[in-house]
């Protein structure tokens, strides 16, 4: 039998471009593949845009009958919606395919990841990037910009700083939610819809003013899955509107704390999930 090249590990030269090169190569190939089917990509972009617009319409329709909900008028709601949707769409674009984990487990694709000398989560995250989410991010961005213009804001270093902090923390928090859900998928597999409750339910919750919530929702989406900190509380601080649960009016600045908590929970969930995983067999 001929000597297998695998039998003798040889010191391989470092890949061109350093440690990140393999990830960059995979991402570049995913981007090229999406852009090569023009019609399909165009249709995907258009549909994503439509999804974003109907979600905005759902909120706007309510304001044809009332002037304010939970102390938030349409202008304030636009700000909340824009912040939440922009952050969610960006997180969805980068790590949203963690939602495909049950399929990766079933088809054995996840086992392939184990064979490569790279961290599992990093491979999963960089295995794809959904460019069509850009269309939804655009809806969120427009809502946010319009929200910033139509609201009577006291512009200054504080407002700009809070906005930047909110956008970064919000995106990081939503990304944590996807990973959080991913860790649970190792246990659920066929019940994968369960995590939709807090991932997509979380997105929905993030577009609402927390002032409309009863105590259970405040506990679940205000703190445990810290959705209120992604959009509603930063907007309330920015506009000087009511906060919930007796939080101080500067609570919007706590968004990074929420992001850190979300990643602690996501990390725990992911580690537990990976340790539970025994392989798909075959």
């Amino acid at each position, binding site marked *: 039998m001929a000597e297998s090249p695998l039998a003798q590990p040889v010191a391989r030269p470092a890949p061109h471009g350093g440690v990140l090169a393999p990830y960059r190569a995979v991402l570049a190939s995913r981007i090229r593949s999406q852009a090569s089917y023009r019609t*399909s990509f165009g*249709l*995907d972009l258009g*549909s994503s845009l*439509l*999804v974003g617009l*109907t979600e905005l*319409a*759902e909120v706007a*329709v*309510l304001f*044809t*009958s*009332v*002037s*304010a*909900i*939970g102390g938030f008028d349409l202008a304030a709601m636009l700000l909340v919606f824009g912040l939440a949707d922009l952050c969610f769409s960006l997180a969805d674009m980068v790590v949203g395919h963690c939602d495909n984990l049950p399929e990766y487990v079933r088809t054995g694709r996840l086992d392939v990841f184990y064979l490569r000398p790279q961290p599992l989560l990093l491979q999963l995250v960089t295995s794809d990037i959904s460019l069509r989410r850009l269309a939804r991010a655009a809806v969120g961005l427009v809502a946010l910009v319009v929200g910033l213009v139509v609201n009577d804001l006291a512009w200054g270093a504080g407002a700009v700083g809070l906005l930047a902090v909110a956008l970064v923390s919000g995106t990081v928090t939503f990304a944590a939610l996807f990973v959080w859900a991913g860790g649970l998928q190792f246990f*659920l597999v*066929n*019940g*994968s*819809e*369960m995590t*939709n*409750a*807090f991932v*997509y*339910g979380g997105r*929905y*919750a993030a577009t*609402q003013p927390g*002032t*409309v*919530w*009863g105590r*259970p*929702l405040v506990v679940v*989406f205000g703190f445990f899955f810290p959705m209120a900190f992604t959009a509603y509380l930063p907007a309330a601080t920015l506009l000087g509107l009511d906060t919930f649960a007796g939080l101080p009016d500067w609570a919007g600045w706590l968004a990074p704390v929420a992001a850190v908590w979300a990643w602690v929970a996501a990390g725990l969930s992911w580690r537990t999930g990976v340790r539970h995983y025994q392989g798909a067999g075959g």
Partner: protein
Amino acid sequence: MLSVRPLSPSVGTPYLRLVVAGFRQQAAYRLAALAGLVANTTFGFLKVALLLATVQAAGGELDGYDVGTMSAYVWLSQGLLGSVNLYGRSEMAERIRTGDVVVDFLRPLDVHAGAVAMEVGRGLFALLPRGVPSVLVGALVVGMTMPTTPGPYLLGAVSVLLGITVSAATAYLVAATGFWLVETRGVALLYMVVAGFLAGLYVPIAIFPAPLFWLASASPFPSMLMYPVDVLSGRVDGLASVGLVAAQVGWLVVVGALGQLMTRRGRHRLEVQGG
């Protein structure tokens, strides 16, 4: 368990059996059903929070909805969500894409009626693990106004069955575009966006501004969700509720006829790739 009987010569029986088969197929996925229930109720709590705050902001009454009827709307619609097809994907779309539908055409059954019957069976099953518990959670935790006479429940049951059937027959049309397009993902996505909004999934269509309301009324989508909810909750009663059920029957005839036509035309277009 159902005993296996020899196929009776009666025409309707095989379709009824497909309904039963669809029902039993879904019964195998218990964890999936529980997961769906958790997601359904979570969305229900968020929806009810926003909509009740809106009713309160409007002074306790919003386009004919008060707190009790709005809560009934939210929980009945969340309960029906697992049974009506508002997302546009179906097994048939996949069978047409892969060419498996050829086998269906070889059977001595109507392909269209068979596919719809199977979907209706799945939808009816979903009422048990997803529909009824969602409504119970809503009724116990939030509370809602429901009719006190048996009439709305009887007509409501008919309306729910019609709603499930109209949605299955309309989602079939999405799948049938596959005879021409092969890949129907884009059409299904478009269907999902339009159907959810116009069926009154997010906001009851009575709250829509007039042009949007008329647009919704001129489409089959309210027949899938809004009308069954209106009839069952007693928000619309008497002759008007019979009118809604009649509209559902009308739409079923329209989308059913379209499905027959598309299946016949599509059969000639069908090209199975590979060997």
